[in-house]
């Protein structure tokens, strides 16, 4: 799937704006507080963002960024300025200076240092977004030195106000960082702070306008080697802002609640769902034998998937306004809005109640549901069958109906309704949904070589990657992918087969035949046999202590693995030692292994159930303990020794 549609309209994601009000004009390096220099590759001396709302239809941005570069890594990160713009936003000025360590200007940014590119350059996206880049790159400067960039933007897309975010896990310290919003006196403006963001200071400007100011000073850099970082939206200081009333092109809108947003999107796209007569007839014909609404929905969805494809088209207000359904019917392509709109039009043809739903798509991506504003980047369809909702991802030709997966599952979506809809949560995928169930039969030779047959069933999020390669890769690439995902020293993949399940809930069965050299390790008279030969390994982090909350992304950590291996031991060997059963239980989940030897069969079973999510810092030691025990059990080997005559 490939659908980041609205993102083009987020003016500056993660933007760090600036303005000259608080400028300290001495940028000599000696002025930097020494606490900001440890761990840092660069010091952000000044980061000013100034958002001046002129009216509900227009604003100006002024940004100023001054960074002292301490070394090559800091240079890599900060030397280039990149500013996006499009039909609604215009860059009115870019300027810059370069200072030596004493704070003396040694170079000014020239027009020749600024380049301009199409945002879709290199890709197939059709977009009117563009980007300007600037840098002082030609020359090498002795560290430390300081660069300064300022730029101004005139903005006529007032659906989106900039958000201010100061990320923690960077190797840059922050000396002064400010966000200022100016607006006509009495102008309705909404904002909310998150993650210990500073409090606002309100005041009046000389001309009587309202001023809102947020400030952060002297934040030292932190090291970035966190193995389990919290999602940015839960960790970075952030101020979300949004308009109450706004204008874009000829449309008037108001965003004080999710209902407002829903209604606005509805209005923007109303009346674009007329289908050509031939298409209407085709749909009627399609569902004529359907016995239930559910069946109709599935039929229409499959039909839509078979006759359309996703293309990215971001032109003008098209970032939010769909191409009409008739065009999609004729051309067979569209972006997420257009394909959703087309699917909804088709469903309405056969009397199915259905709605578009705005969502923020992507793995581990979230919105703040308590702050109604344009936080979405994708549109999907939601159809109602009797009492059930069926979610439809319209940009994929292969996803089964109602399967949201890591892309859109388990998060709020805003239903688009004429009178305003609300946020509802899409289906979530927890440990018991995300199953891997495997059975391996290994015939061991006395040399240690083995012939292995494995059958594995994958469901829920665990089937996603395999379904994806099944649909998207050639046989050779599938083979390479499978080999790279088997954790064995060397192997010959004799045969493989991936089969999609027939049920409504997606699943994949993988069958492998492997010839493995040194499947068991032979030393003299002994054979060392691994009990968890093909299981998912657990990685140990480098840091075993921490004092902040940690995050095990559910998309990766919510799973159930059930692995069984049956070894046929070559004749003449008897176990020298057997292994005790291991059981580990913790708040993170459970782990069990068992081995049993009967006849010539060694049976090893392993069960892991894990629960991802955010955990408090105090549980970290327990997590490390859990990992240690699991890793130890996974390393265990059963030793066989040849019978001595």
């Amino acid at each position, binding site marked *: 799937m490939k659908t980041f549609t609205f993102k083009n309209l987020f003016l500056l994601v993660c933007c760090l704006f600036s303005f000259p009000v608080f400028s300290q004009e001495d940028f000599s390096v000696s002025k930097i507080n020494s606490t900001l220099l440890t761990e840092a590759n660069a010091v952000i001396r000044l980061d000013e963002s100034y958002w001046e709302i002129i009216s509900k239809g227009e604003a100006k941005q002024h940004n100023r960024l001054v960074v002292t570069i301490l070394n090559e890594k800091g240079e890599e990160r900060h030397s280039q300025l990149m500013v996006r713009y499009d039909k609604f936003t215009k860059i009115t000025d870019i300027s810059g200076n370069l200072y030596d360590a004493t704070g003396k200007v040694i170079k000014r940014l020239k027009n020749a240092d600024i380049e301009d590119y199409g945002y*879709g*350059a290199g890709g197939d996206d059709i977009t009117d977004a563009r980007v300007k880049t600037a840098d002082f790159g030609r020359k090498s400067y002795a560290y430390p030195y300081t660069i300064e960039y300022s730029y101004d933007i005139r903005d006529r897309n007032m659906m989106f106000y900039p958000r201010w975010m100061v990320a923690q896990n960077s190797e840059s310290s922050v000396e002064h960082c400010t966000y200022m919003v100016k607006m006509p006196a009495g102008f309705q403006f909404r904002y909310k702070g998150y993650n210990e963001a500073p409090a606002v200071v309100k005041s009046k400007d000389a001309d009587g306008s309202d001023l809102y100011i947020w400030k952060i000073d002297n934040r030292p850099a932190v090291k970035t080697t966190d193995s389990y970082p919290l999602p940015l939206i839960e960790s970075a200081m952030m101020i979300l802002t949004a308009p109450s009333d706004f204008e874009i092109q000829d449309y008037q809108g108001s965003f004080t609640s999710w209902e407002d947003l829903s209604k606005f999107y509805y209005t923007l796209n109303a009346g674009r769902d007329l289908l050509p007569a031939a298409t209407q007839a085709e749909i009627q014909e399609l569902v004529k034998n359907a016995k239930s609404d559910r069946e109709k929905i599935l039929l229409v969805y499959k039909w839509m998937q078979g006759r359309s494809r996703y293309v990215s088209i971001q032109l003008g207000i098209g970032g939010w306004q769909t191409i009409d359904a008739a065009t999609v019917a004729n051309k067979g392509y569209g972006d997420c809005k257009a394909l959703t709109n087309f699917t909804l039009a088709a469903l309405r043809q056969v009397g199915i109640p259905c709605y578009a739903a705005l969502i923020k798509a992507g793995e581990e991506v979230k919105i703040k549901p308590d702050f109604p504003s344009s936080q979405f980047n994708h549109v999907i369809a939601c159809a109602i069958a009797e009492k059930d909702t069926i979610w439809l991802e319209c940009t994929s030709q292969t996803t089964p109906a109602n399967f949201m997966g890591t892309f859109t599952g388990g998060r709020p979506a805003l239903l688009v309704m004429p009178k305003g809809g609300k946020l509802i949560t899409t289906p979530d995928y927890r440990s018991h949904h995300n199953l891997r169930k495997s059975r391996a039969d290994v015939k061991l030779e006395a040399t240690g070589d083995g012939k292995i047959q494995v059958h594995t069933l994958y469901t829920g999020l665990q089937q996603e990657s395999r379904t994806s390669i099944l649909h998207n890769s050639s046989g050779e690439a599938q083979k390479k992918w499978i080999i790279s995902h088997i954790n064995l020293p*060397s192997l010959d993949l004799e045969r493989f087969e991936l089969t999609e399940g027939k049920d409504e809930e997606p699943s994949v069965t993988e069958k492998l035949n492997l010839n493995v050299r040194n499947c068991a390790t032979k030393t003299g008279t002994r054979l060392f046999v691994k009990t968890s030969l093909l299981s998912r390994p657990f990685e140990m982090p480098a840091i075993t202590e921490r004092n902040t909350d940690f995050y095990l992304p559910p998309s990766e950590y919510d799973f159930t693995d059930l692995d069984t291996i049956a070894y046929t031991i070559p004749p003449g060997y008897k176990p020298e030692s057997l292994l005790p059963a291991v059981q580990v239980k913790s708040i993170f989940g459970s782990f069990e292994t068992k081995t049993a030897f009967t006849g010539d069969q060694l049976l090893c079973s392993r069960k892991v159930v894990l629960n991802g999510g955010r955990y408090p810092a105090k549980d970290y030691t327990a997590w490390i303990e859990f990992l240690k025990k699991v890793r130890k059990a996974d390393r265990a080997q059963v030793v066989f020794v040849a019978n001595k005559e």
Partner: protein
Amino acid sequence: MHKFTPSHLSMLVITKPHGLFRVIRTAFVLILLLNVSFLAFSQEDFKPKLGFIDRPSLDMVAYPGDSTADAVYLYDYGNVRFSYDDHQGLVMIMDCWARIKILKESALDRASVSLSYYDGPSADKKERIYDLKGFTHNLEANQIVTTPLDKKSVKDEKSSDTYWTMKFNLPNVKKGSVIEYSYTKKTPLSVRDKPETWTFQGSIPFKWSEFRINIPAFLEYKMTMGGYLPLFINKHERVNTDVGHSKFNGDGMAYRFVVKDAPAFVNEPYITTARDYLSKIEFELSSYAIPGEVIKRYSQTWENVDRTLDQMPWFGGELRKSGYLKEIKEEIIKKTNDPEERLALAYTHIQNHTKWDGYTGTGSKEGVKKAYDNKKGNASDINLSLTTLLRELDLDSNPVILSTRSNGKIHQAIPLMESFNYVVTHVKIGEKEYLLDATQPYARMGLLPEYALNGSGRLIPKKGPGRFIELLPRDSKSKLEMISAEINPEEGTVKGSYTISYGGYEALSWREKYGIEKESVYHENLKKELPEWEVKNIAIKNKDGDLKGTVNIACDFSYEDDNVSEGLFYFNPLLVGRWGTNPLKSSERIYPLDFGSGISSSYIGSFKLPDGYALEEIPKSEVIALPEKGGRFAYQVSQTGNVIQVNSTIIVNKVHFMAEEYHDLKEFFERVVQKHAQPLVIKKKVN
């Protein structure tokens, strides 16, 4: 009027990226073949009609040649001719036509097409794309339905100051569709003087790939054929060429090349670059002879290449400037008379003074002096100034041009200046020769970065003809790890010290990774690599002080072994440096292997047992060797008193292996993995 005989018109050289020897031999054989004559041995030909599709193409559900392909080029066609344009002068006109069958959903993106074209500063420097036509063919209700591309949905986007991109989406494309589009691209010779490289192969199979070119006699191109696929049609015939201007009309040669049933190109590890292995045809302009005017010759022979470079202001011209180096020259002269010492000082000076901007290139961009003043420049800036400085110091130094691995191989049979993209410095003192690259802040003098180790380079002397020199690795990826530890089987603990020394390319890559980092970054990574260990007292010696010396790391460690049971202790003595997996995974190999540099990886473990324990089982010692001293693996376990010593040495001397040697090499690594997995068994002595 000068007249070319057809055999002189344009030369076709066919090379295969095998070893050096093979290239030359194959090349000459094929040139010969070509000159003898090309009998048309093709019975079947394929000439489809634009906008019309055959039924079997639509019925196809899987490509017979590769049942898992997600799409296949049924037809890929390019036809180049030359023409005279009143405003732009001589132009190349290329007709392109692609027809693709969509077999899986993942290939639907192929119906979104981007074509870029150059937009120069003046009217005579602009490319143009016109006559775009597109069609989608579907089978609907058992009928062929063809939908043309709607002109209105074609968008032109300004991508940068000098490039535009034409973008369009073909309509009604679904699994099973056949899409096709054709267009004509006009390129003034003042923008590009040769046709773009035509590739007969891609990431999906090509059923029919055809390239045609009609070259008028006044233009001479060198054509180079590369790759592993045979030509199905290879024809040329003498024709009358109408360029549209009486001055240029006349004799010409029309070529037609077809590769049929090209499989999808699969990337393999240990290759230089995919382009070296793809089937393709490349062009280089070698002369331009307008009737009545003086013939303009471009690099035709290696001697031409040498002289052309020498005359270019951005190469030879830059080597004749030396004023900017006066200060440092005098400083070095004052310091020493010894040529070796002067060399070392000059190398270190340029290495530290001018920072590499990451760009390759045979020529200086804005002048070597400017780069020197800016303390930043491309590879040519840096190594030309090094050459100049060495010459100023009265050393016998010359630049060497080469092609980096990612830029593809150089074929000595084909003199092409544009195949090169990098410059290094050669210096000879007495009988000693060095190749230097001052772009690498962590490379010791004489060690070329691995990306520059690609066949041979051409030395360009001040006067007279140049010569080829082989770019051989002066060092290997060398690593020595040592463990000295005490085992306590009762507790199942192992405690001791661990040292690593990195030499050659291992040292270079270690320094490139950690040289600019704080030591703590390495400490953390080391701990991460040894998750079960308790690691203490990490010490790094010679991080980057003496680049000739190894990087030395030492630490103390302890860990608990799991495999402990009553009276028995199983234990893999390769605590570190273990080859856990075979780097060669594919069961077969079509292309030769190129490792860049050799491998030397050694491990010495020494373990002390407490009294009352003995080795129950000792893994067999093993020595295996690759043919022709290509490599050697030795593994040995011995016991002296209560000390067990384990040695493992892996040496691979050879850098290039033929596809036929793949199985030997894979088996060699397999044996290493096997030995490295073997545990020792330690048993309590029974009283």
